[in-house]
């Protein structure tokens, strides 16, 4: 028997007949009158179909005719109630359809349409009627869009506003429409430059009454008001930085997740900086008394107070962190004659002063006892006192606010008993759950400068890193595809150029800040009253960060860094050395000190990973189905099935190409054999030349 195959819809289109729809309609109708009955509705639907077959054997029924048939069958089979419900339903649908058609007809824009669309400008705080002329003028104002194109776009925007039936539109919508139209006409205009800082209401709400995690919270669960204010201010500044300060292509690359520009919420700040008590004593550091009386520096307590103030000040003015260097060294002459109790008290004060505020940056505190032979004991004694106070934590703020201890491991540290005791104490702190950073310094070099500070080849080593932009290597690798290594390196070129442009923009801004008459950074960068500046912008380093190298290797060659495959390791080394070269070139071309660094920040890796998931959900879930993030920096994946030595072996060759990279060592407390075990490991790493910095913590 031939069956009804097609139905003609109301708009004239012919579509396949779907029995399921008839069945659903019947079931709905039956439902309106009593319980649903699958069997019955199927029976009725079959009957409808049967009658349709009989009636419309030589034509295509319309939707109306099908519905008529349903009605009729329901009536004839004795389901009058259901038929009535069905009729009512049809009627309601018809009325809605008519209303919609009527509105559409009214909205068809005509030449003589005189309805007014009001545009609300939230930034300027006023409303005005939409004017095609004014929009066109605005668009063509900076000359990058021709007037003809601007007119065209303005007309299109108006058309879309009217067609949408909008009576009142926010300015942001008008902007977005204009931008969309421009994009469609492939005009190279960046309208974001005109955008104000827009904070979404959810964002505000989240910052004010945050639920769940993130950020330090007051006891009630809501964040501290000051933290919320910082966060919101940061968000506004980020909008500003993206819209106004960065070149358009860099801003777009950041938003897309090709690169990550650090510190957008602090556009006019250094990335990281180091500070020495000597700076404070000389009155160069912020927060130090402007005129230091000659004997003030003699008083250790006074120095501590000023140092703490400077460190906090800097902590609020840098993006990543502050390192206080040369501590025991500077204090040694002051405390040479102090007894044990006095040392302990001084150490406690110093730790308290250098602790971070809630929501602030943590300070890294260099505790390495290095000094001339004469002062060595005093310096080691103070370092010991500091470590003991750090271990006791009595009367000090929580562990995540305390300064991060940094203890240099050098050959000298194994020569003298005092220095070795400091090392053992630091190892003991690790066993008690602190994280300690150990820079490894081979030979007789002086104490290492802190993290991110360029190792000084020049006469005056730079002590600040001014900005960092991290490159999203895994995305490039995924885009160019497996095995196309040359293509990948070419793609890296583009990212390096983008990052260099971003650095340039920031440098201009910082130069302006340095030249400004007010502001808090100016005195740091300019040097007050003829003194040498604390940080010289010309000497500062600009960091190109890399992250996710392990995943990059995996995407390019199919193996991860820890796999027993020479290819992956070789490839990673090649990428690192190529990038190092390119970064140096970019620095030379732009006349700034560029460094290639490992970006060990897990948040950055997480953000890039999330961006990549948005970018290509399918491909990402193929490659990284059960992983929550890229492994930060150039490290072997944290949970990789390799032992520590293999990890060191794999990472070491990469570290050689980077200006800073930290080997993260996680030990199970029971496996270390006490402080001696950790010291032995450090000593071996130093001798074997494994890394520049080791960060040791226990699980």
């Amino acid at each position, binding site marked *: 028997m031939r069956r009804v195959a097609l139905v003609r819809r109301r708009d004239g289109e012919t579509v396949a007949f779907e029995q399921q729809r008839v069945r659903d309609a019947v079931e709905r109708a039956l439902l309106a009158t009593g319980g649903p009955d699958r069997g019955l509705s199927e029976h009725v639907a079959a009957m409808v179909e049967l009658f349709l077959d009989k009636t419309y054997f030589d034509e295509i029924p319309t939707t109306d005719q099908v519905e008529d048939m349903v009605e009729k069958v329901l009536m004839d089979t004795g389901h009058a109630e259901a038929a009535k419900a069905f009729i009512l339903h049809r009627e309601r649908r018809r009325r809605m359809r008519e209303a919609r058609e009527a509105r559409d007809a009214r909205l068809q824009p005509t030449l003589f349409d005189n309805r007014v669309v009001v545009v609300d400008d939230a930034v300027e705080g006023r409303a005005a009627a939409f004017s095609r002329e004014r929009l066109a003028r605005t668009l063509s104002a900076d000359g990058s869009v021709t007037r003809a194109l601007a007119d065209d776009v303005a007309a299109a925007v108006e058309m879309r506003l009217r067609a949408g039936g909008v009576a009142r539109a926010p300015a942001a919508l008008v902007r977005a429409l204009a931008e969309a139209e421009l994009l469609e006409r492939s005009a190279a205009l960046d309208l974001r430059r005109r955008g104000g800082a827009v904070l979404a209401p959810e964002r505000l709400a989240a910052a004010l009454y945050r639920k769940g995690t993130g950020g330090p919270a007051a006891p009630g669960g809501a964040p501290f008001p000051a933290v919320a204010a910082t966060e919101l201010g940061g968000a506004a500044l980020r909008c500003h930085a993206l819209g106004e300060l960065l070149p358009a292509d860099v801003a777009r690359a950041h938003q897309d997740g090709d690169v990550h520009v650090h510190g957008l919420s602090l556009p006019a700040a250094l990335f990281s900086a180091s500070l020495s008590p000597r700076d404070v004593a000389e009155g160069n550091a912020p927060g130090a008394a402007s005129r230091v009386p000659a004997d003030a520096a003699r008083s250790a307590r006074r120095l501590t107070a000023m140092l703490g103030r400077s460190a906090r000040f800097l902590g609020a003015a840098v993006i990543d962190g502050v390192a206080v260097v040369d501590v025991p060294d500077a204090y040694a002459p002051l405390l040479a004659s102090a007894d044990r109790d006095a040392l302990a008290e001084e150490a406690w004060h110093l730790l308290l002063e250098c602790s971070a505020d809630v929501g602030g940056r943590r300070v890294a505190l260099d505790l390495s006892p290095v000094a001339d032979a004469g002062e060595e004991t005093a310096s080691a004694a103070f370092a010991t006192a500091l*470590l*003991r106070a750090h*271990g*006791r934590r009595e009367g000090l703020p929580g562990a995540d606010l305390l300064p991060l201890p940094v203890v240099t491991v050098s050959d000298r540290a194994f020569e003298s008993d005092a220095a070795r*005791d400091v090392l*053992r*104490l630091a190892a*003991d702190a690790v066993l008690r759950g602190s994280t300690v950073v150990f820079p490894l310094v081979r030979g007789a070099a002086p104490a290492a400068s802190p993290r991110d500070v360029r190792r000084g080849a020049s006469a005056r080593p730079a002590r600040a890193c001014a900005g960092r932009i991290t490159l999203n290597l895994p995305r490039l690798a995924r885009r160019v595809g497996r095995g196309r290594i040359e293509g990948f390196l070419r793609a890296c070129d583009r990212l390096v150029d983008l990052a260099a442009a971003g650095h340039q923009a920031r440098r201009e801004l910082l130069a302006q800040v340095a030249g400004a008459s007010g502001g808090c950074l100016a005195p740091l960068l300019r040097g007050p009253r003829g003194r040498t500046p604390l940080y010289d912008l010309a000497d500062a380093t600009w960091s190109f960060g890399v992250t996710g190298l392990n995943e990059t290797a995996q995407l390019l060659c199919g193996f991860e860094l820890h796999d027993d495959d020479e290819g992956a390791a070789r490839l990673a080394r090649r990428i690192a050395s190529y990038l190092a070269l390119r970064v140096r070139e970019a620095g030379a071309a732009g006349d700034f000190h560029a460094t290639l660094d490992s970006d060990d920040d897990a948040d950055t890796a997480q953000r890039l990973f999330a961006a990549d998931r948005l970018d290509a959900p399918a491909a990402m879930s193929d490659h990284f189905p059960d992983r929550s993030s890229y492994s930060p920096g150039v490290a072997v994946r944290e949970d990789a099935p390799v*032992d*520590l*030595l*293999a990890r*060191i*072996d794999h990472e070491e060759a990469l570290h050689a190409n980077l200006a800073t990279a930290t080997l993260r060592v996680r*030990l199970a407390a*029971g*496996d*270390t*054999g*006490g*402080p*001696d*075990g*950790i*010291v*032995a*490991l450090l000593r*071996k*790493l130093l001798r*074997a030349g*494994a890394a520049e910095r080791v960060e040791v913590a226990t699980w």
Partner: protein
Amino acid sequence: MVRRAPPLPPVRGLQPMSLTAWEGRVTAVLQIQGCNFHCPDCPVPHLIATSVEGGSIPIESALEALYRRRRWLDAVVIAGGEPTLHEGTRELVRLVREFGLRVRLHTNGSNPLALRELLDTGELASVSMTVRGPLDPTYAVAVGARVRLANVYECVELLLRAPGEHEFRVPWLPQVVEHDQMVAVLRMLAGARRVVLEPARDGSPGVRTLQQVGRAAGTYVESCVVAARPGQDFGARGRSRSVSP
């Protein structure tokens, strides 16, 4: 007739990094199959059988792994089982020495002949001997096998005389060995460079008791520590020094 070198001992396990096998050194541990004792609390019972039915690591790949990591290692610990049972141990020590790594040997002290031979080569930087009790009939209970006490004693004497960083590990089986007997053990080891007191595997008799023993008899030896409590030394030399802040 050409005399062939004895076969290298069967390696059952390789621990690529240990910070505890030789305190203060980064080591890798080679575990050799086969032991002549049956200690009731043996931590590695799978190594006791002399056959290699459980499977062994090809000696070449174990050596290759060591060679590859030689830069990151200080030393290799050859542990057992009982490595002195195999004639090839000497050859193994020589090979590891060729990588530039120092060697520590673990022994239960049942084979003074082999131990003397190994010490005479001068290749061993350190021997760690496990002493499980006083030299009286309890010893046989503590090691679960018939044992010639003279052998154990000879090994102790050998190590006390030979140069090197030798140490004695003294595990305490509280059900078998009394408190006084532990003190007697330490007295027998008088003059040793280092003694490590170990609790039984279930943690008994507790670190406190071990520390008491250390305090009571530690002075007989140069350095006496309790395992898992580093930094506290009851020995004559280390009495005054301790790191705990």
